[in-house]
Each structure stands twice: as structure tokens, then as C-alpha cells.
């Protein structure tokens, strides 16, 4: 294009641009499979469901189960822990969310959260830290009895995975 001096775009300019455009589309179409192959594959996606029997989990106990390769905490909360979680004014929270919104109605004693610190992915330790919930050993984030972040650097609350109660003692995650 640089070689042509004419003020008007010539037919050759058009050919150059059209060729480059087709080439770019072709290159993108070629690169896409190379990038996409790195995404979670079908066998990983297939493992996306976990069932947990709640009967053996005593009040005050936290168990860790594996779902999609990640730890999930199932906490059987005491009355006191639930009250503590509900007493906090939302304005005090880093990532404001009510405890009610993080548990299922009628199953308030059960807190189900992904056991991965929202900072850089370590597994926080249960019943530790100043908020009675979790403490992350990696960079010191703390979570309360609702799994909400109370001390940075973690920016968000522990994630609540999709789950449902199949019965009062059986929970299905995923």
C-alpha cells in the first residue's frame, strides 16, 4: 500500500486488505483449538457432582469433602455460631452478604462453602482466627462462621457452591 501514491484507494489496496483480513481469520481459527485444548476437558467436567451424608457430622464439627478436585467445607454450626454470624452489621463486612443468603432456609445449621481462600487459593484452617471461622495460613486472611472474609488480603467471601438437600441428611453438591 505504501508503494501507491494515488489519492484514491486502488483495487490493489482492496486486494491487500481483503487478503490480510482472510489471513487473520484463518490464523485465529487455527490458533483457537491450540488455546481451547487447555480448558477443563470432558472427563474433568464429568466429575462435577458429589453427594455427602450429613448424619455423622456432629454439631460444631467441620468436615472437608472433595468436589471437582477442590475441598468443600461442610460446617455443622452451633446456635452460638449462627447467632454470631447474624449479629454482624453488613456495613462492617469486606464483601457484604447476609448469613441468610449463604445457607438454605430450614437448614441454617449447615454451612457449605468451597474451602479455598479467595486470595490465592490456600485451604484455610477451621475454628481458627479471631472470628471463630477460618484462618488462612498463607497470607493471614480470616473468615467468620458464615465463611465471610473479615480480614484481607482475601477480597471475597468463601464461595458457596451450587448444592441442594436431597433429604435432611443428604446434600448433593454440584
Amino acid at each position, binding site marked *: 500500500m505504501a508503494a501507491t501514491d494515488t489519492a484514491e484507494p486502488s483495487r490493489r489496496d482492496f486486494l491487500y486488505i481483503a487478503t490480510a483480513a482472510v489471513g487473520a481469520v484463518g490464523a485465529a481459527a487455527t490458533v483457537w483449538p491450540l*488455546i481451547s485444548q*487447555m*480448558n*477443563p*476437558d470432558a472427563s*474433568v467436567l464429568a466429575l462435577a457432582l458429589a453427594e455427602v451424608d450429613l448424619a455423622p457430622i456432629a454439631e460444631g464439627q467441620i468436615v*472437608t469433602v*472433595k468436589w*471437582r*478436585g*477442590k*475441598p468443600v467445607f461442610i460446617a455443622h454450626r452451633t446456635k452460638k455460631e449462627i447467632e454470631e454470624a447474624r449479629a454482624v452489621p453488613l456495613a462492617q463486612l469486606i464483601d457484604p452478604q447476609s448469613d441468610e443468603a449463604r445457607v438454605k432456609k430450614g437448614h441454617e445449621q449447615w454451612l457449605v462453602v468451597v*474451602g*479455598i481462600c479467595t*486470595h*490465592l*487459593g*490456600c*485451604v484455610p484452617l477451621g475454628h481458627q482466627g479471631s472470628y471463630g471461622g477460618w484462618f*488462612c*495460613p*498463607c*497470607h*493471614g486472611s480470616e473468615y467468620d462462621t458464615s465463611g465471610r472474609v473479615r480480614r*484481607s*488480603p*482475601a*477480597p471475597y467471601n468463601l464461595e458457596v457452591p451450587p448444592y441442594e438437600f436431597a433429604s435432611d441428611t443428604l446434600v448433593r453438591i454440584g
Partner: protein
Amino acid sequence: MSGHSSYQPQNRLLRWFEARLPVGWLIHSSFVAYPTPRNLNYWWTFGGILSFMLTVQIVTGVVLTMHFTPTATQAFDSVEHIMRDVNYGWLLRYLHANGGSMFFLAVYIHMFRGLYYGSYKEPREVLWILGVIIFFLMMASAFMGYVLPWGQMSFWAATVITNLFSAIPIFGKGITEWLWGGYAVDNPTLQRFFSLHYLLPFMIAGVVVLHVWALHVVGQNNPTGIDVKSDKDTVPFTPYATAKDGFALVCFLILLAWFVFYIPNYLSHPDNYIPANPLQTPPHIVPEWYFLPYYAILRAIPSKLIGVIALFASIAVLAFLPWLDTSKVRSARYRPLFRQFFWIFVICCIGLGYLGSKQPEGLYVIAARILTAYYFLYFLVILPVLGLIERPKAVPASISEAVLPKGGAPVAAGAAAPDRNG
């Protein structure tokens, strides 16, 4: 690199070959006849040491791969198999693991050398930036290599580092899952890391070729920081630089051997001899020593996103250094003020390394914040301003004037003696 005619092999067969592909000329002009400043000190021997260490890593790595199995169920056991069953497996693995550490020791010395003597300044900007790229690739290779034995530290290092990308707004989650090939670090992550760990060192080797090419275009800097002006300022690479580099390399290898044979696990973490467990984070996770300063910067900042940005910025800022330092004088020898700030900077980096190994609590956090601030101030404020306000000392007219006895005539011992000035 001067004309092809300068190198003429005696042997007829070699002459025949040389006329068709002048490899001999390339080697001769780059590593034999190549003029090097006559006043280079031992800080200039680390380039050669680095090239050697890259070769060590590639050779031991290729051999380790013959016995290593890159899957989540077998990686840990196959490393133990290398340690216990394979002939000299322990030696190869310890050489590779400690070789990685020594590689970083050498690159840090090499980089501080550049900072002190102003080797990044005009006309060596591209040379310097290629170096920063090599450094970045080295960090990526070492990180992925550390994941391969699939111990607890491997797994959690992989988790924490890949999660850095989750700080990216909106796309963060998608990017991390794409990097993992799953919803957490797992077998697919290990397999791709192995593939890349094998590839990256060869990319490094490619950039090293460009780095050395750029070096030979603009010529080496030297302790005075002034340009080579005449033949009197230089000596031929062989025997002068080859002998000096060789001696330094041997000393360096003694250090490597000391680690490999006497304290092979000193620089690693006992937790990495526990197989990876995705459900339990070790109580105290720290990266390898050479990443500690960056880790300290990451943790000094209470916000996740800004912490991650600071971490990457602390490396990226190096690439802009040629334009951040406004002083025309290269060597710190003639920059009294710069020299003081430079040494504070060195102490700052070591301090950050120390803090990176400590729990992020109380005074440690405050100290890490102060040092992080200095790290960035050094590049973004101190260097630009110093160049404008500092009065450099008088710079000698030429290298030979600076290092040869008065009268300037090249004396027989002149090439060896000037080291004292380093």
C-alpha cells in the same frame, strides 16, 4: 564482527567447509579474536557462568526426563525412583535442583553488576531488555520445574502462583481454570507444566543467542563505563577473557558441588518430600529463596489485585530502566550519590528476601511495606531525579588512561594488573 577474511583455517578440508559455511569464522571472531575491554573485573565473568549453567540444566533435565513420569499419581514416586533406583539418579536430581538455585544466584549477580556499572544505558538498551526477558523466562521455567516433583510445596506453590491470575477482573476465574485445565491444580496442570518446563529452557537458549549477538554489536561495558576508544583499550577474548571466565567458572562450580555433595537439601523444603495433598495446605508455605523478594512485595500490599500488579511491576520496571535513569555517566564509580542509593537498594532487595520468608504479621508487614516503597522509589523517583541533580566525579578520557601506568604505553603485564581497580 569484521570481514570473513580474518579467519583462515590451515587444514584444507576445513578451508573447503569454511568457504561454504563460515562457522569457524563465527566462533573465532566471537570468542577468540573478539576485543574485550582490558579492565574487566570478575563481575564480568557471570555471563559465561550463566551460559554454562543453562547447559547444565538442559543436560541434567533431558536425562531426568528419561526416568520421570509427569502424572499426578506417579510424579512423586518417579522422583523417589530417580533418587533411590536410577544409577547416579541422586546426583542428577541434586545437580538439577541446586543448579536451578545457582543459576539464579548467578543471574542476580549479573543483574546487579549491570545496575552498578550502568550497563543498561545507551547503546545497550536492547541488550538489557533481552536480559530482562531471559530473567522472566527463567522464573517461569524454575516455577514450573518446582511443581514437577508433586510434593506439598510443589502443589501449593502451583496453586498460589496460578491464583495470581485470578486477581484479573472479570476474566480471572476463566483464565485460572484455563491454566489448570480443571477447577483446581491437578493432573492436567502437572502435564502442561512439564511440557512447558521442557520447552522454556530452549526458548531461553534462543534469547541468549540474541543477547550475545546484541552484546557483540554494541560491545561490552566495563568498570569505568566509558566507551572503548582505541585498540589500546582492549585485549583479545582469548586468552584473556577465556582464562578469567574459566577460573571464575571453576570457583563457581566448587560452590555448586558443595551444595550438591554436602547440603543438597539445604535450599529446598522438607514439606516437598510429602506427596501433594489438595485438601491440606502446609502451615507455612514459602517459595524458593530466589522468589522471596517478590513474594514479600506481593504480601506487603493488603489488596489482592494491587499486590499482584506490584509483583509483576517490580519485574517489568527493569525493562524501562534505560529511560528511567537520566544520568549520562554509566559507572557508579563516578557517581557518588548514586552509589549510596545503589547499595541501599541491594540491602533493600536482600531485606525483602528475608521478609518473604517470614509470616506476614506485625512488624514484618510494616518493614516489607517500607522496603517495597523503596524498591519502587529507587526506579521511579531516585534514578530519574539523581541524574538531574548529581555532580559526577571527573571521568577519565579513556580506559587505557584509567588503568595503565602514566604515559599510557601498553606494558606487558598491563592486561592482568588492572583488576585491582575493580
